[in-house]
């Protein structure tokens, strides 16, 4: 309680460290809290899938295919007699791995480009921004489709494809945050004190662009999971035996008239997961927005 009050005061006086700001923002927004809680559950499921799932990811029973939900199989079985609930549980891992890796790659590359672009400005900035204009002219899901279609399916290709579609977005967001920060006086002061570019970037600028990065990462993970499921759905996703929600939806589609549950549950899993990341991202963004704060 006392800690909370102290945080409140620090927040009002604007003297929190960037990380504290994020934690404070989450704690002040119910949406962000719910989203975070749900994500925590998802992460738990993803890590301990083997222990939680009642059946194996690939455990088949050709004598018991397309069985409607029962006590043995809460969400029924699929076209190879595999337990749908277990596949959804293992699918959590797949989705999170794809989402987090794709965003990490996009963030690493886009982040560096954005930092360099926003910090050094000039010709480098123009060059990077023109290239990102080109990338942004292709709707990112189409870019991902083209890449996966070209290099083939599989986890790695899919992650790279989704990441490439996101690089330009990250670069832009980080660039504009960096530009706002560099206009502040303490950067000039650091220059005057003779700090190196590297030191200024890592010590002063990076911490100050943390919140837009976190917001965009959260929304980006949501997009990546959606894109992965979409690719899986049109048959450009992972290999069939891997549990992936989009793929499950796509193969369940053939049974849409007779075994509706094969379509409903994986879709629900996708939606709730995306919802959680969107809630977290939105919540933090609103909490950081000074105009939204006192509402």
């Amino acid at each position, binding site marked *: 309680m006392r800690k909370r009050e102290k945080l*409140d005061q620090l927040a*009002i006086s604007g003297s929190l460290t960037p990380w504290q700001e994020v934690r404070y923002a989450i704690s*002040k927004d119910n949406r962000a809290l719910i989203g975070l809680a749900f994500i925590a559950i998802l992460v738990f499921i993803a890590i301990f899938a083997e222990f939680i799932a009642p059946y194996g990811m690939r455990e088949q029973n050709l004598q018991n295919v397309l069985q409607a939900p029962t006590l043995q199989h809460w969400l029924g079985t699929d076209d190879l007699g595999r337990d749908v609930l277990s596949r959804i549980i293992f699918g959590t891992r797949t989705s999170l791995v794809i989402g987090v890796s794709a965003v990490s790659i996009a963030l690493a590359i886009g982040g560096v480009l954005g930092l360099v672009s926003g910090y050094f400005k000039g010709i480098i900035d123009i060059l990077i921004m023109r290239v990102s204009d080109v990338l942004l002219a292709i709707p990112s899901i189409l870019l991902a489709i083209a890449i996966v279609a070209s290099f083939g399916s599989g986890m790695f290709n899919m992650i790279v494809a989704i990441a490439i579609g996101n690089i330009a977005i990250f670069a832009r967001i980080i660039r504009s945050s960096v530009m706002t920060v560099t206009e502040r006086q303490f950067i000039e002061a650091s220059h005057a004190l003779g700090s190196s570019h590297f030191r200024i970037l890592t010590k002063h600028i990076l911490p100050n662009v943390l919140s837009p990065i976190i917001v965009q990462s959260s929304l980006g993970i949501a997009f990546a999971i959606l894109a992965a499921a979409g690719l899986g759905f049109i048959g450009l996703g992972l290999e069939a035996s891997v549990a992936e929600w989009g793929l499950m939806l796509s193969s369940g589609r053939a049974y849409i008239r007779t075994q509706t549950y094969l379509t409903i549950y994986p879709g629900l899993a996708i939606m709730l997961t995306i919802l959680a990341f969107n809630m977290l991202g939105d919540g933090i963004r609103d909490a950081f927005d000074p105009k939204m*704060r*006192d*509402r």
Partner: protein
Amino acid sequence: MSLLEVRELQTYFDTRRGVVKAVDGISFTLESGKGLGIVGESGSGKSQTAMSIIQLFQHNQRIAGGSIMFDGRQISDYTDSQLEAIRGNEISIIFQEPMSSLNPVFTVSKQLCEVLITHQNMSSEDAKAKAYEMLKAVKIDQPERVLKSYPHQLSGGMSQRVMIAMALSCNPKLLIADEPTTALDVIIQAEILKLMNELKEKLNTAILFITHDLGVVSKMVDNVVVMHGGKIVESAPVKVLFKSAKHPYTKRLIAAFLKTDIRRANEGETLDFFEAENDQYDFQQFRDRGVADDDFYQVSAGHMIACRLKKK
């Protein structure tokens, strides 16, 4: 009967971190055709007092107590639609930032005519003619051109003239001027003030002048109310205030304005409690002596100072 009578007005904001008391129980009156200045630093609640009169509120703002009588009507209890009939018509207001107070996507003509069409039921032709007249009345050089212009094409002074024209076009009984000249440079400021004075005389409009600038106040109003922390600290006729302000807060305001040392401003002070250190004032002894009521101490006719002010 006074044109405007504000009694124990309280205006609160409900925020996530609790209630903020922007205006906390203030009272004053304004007679027709007269001028009243409300002076204070930013955050003192002076603007919120003005806003409260016609209830131009944020969504989380409300009148929590007290009453406002205007022209014999208790407008603090009015509904939105009743207030809409008064706003811009009987009570007008002009704001501090003329550049941002005009809608950037509409022409001056449209914004001027709107008010006439709404309150005077004018046809758009008549409204345009009247708008033209009003622009001439506020001494704008090329009214036709300005009418067709968008706000971003006008200078600050021009914008404020347009605002004044708009505010006065329905011949209001009360004009609230919320720091109308703060954002303008000194020469324009003087012109605008002169214009307002002229129009005030001509139209017999009462003015509620809100400002932190004591220099402006001296030219525009008859009486002054000094606010601090949502409360009135001192009120007096304008000349009395400048000559013999009693409250230390007022004194400091005046000193700051005159750029003089606060000690010199305090010279010749008769009331010993103003010498108290650390700005804590205890009026109890005055109440005991019977020269102060619960809240105010009357120094002379029309000159009151607050008793309960405590600096945080």
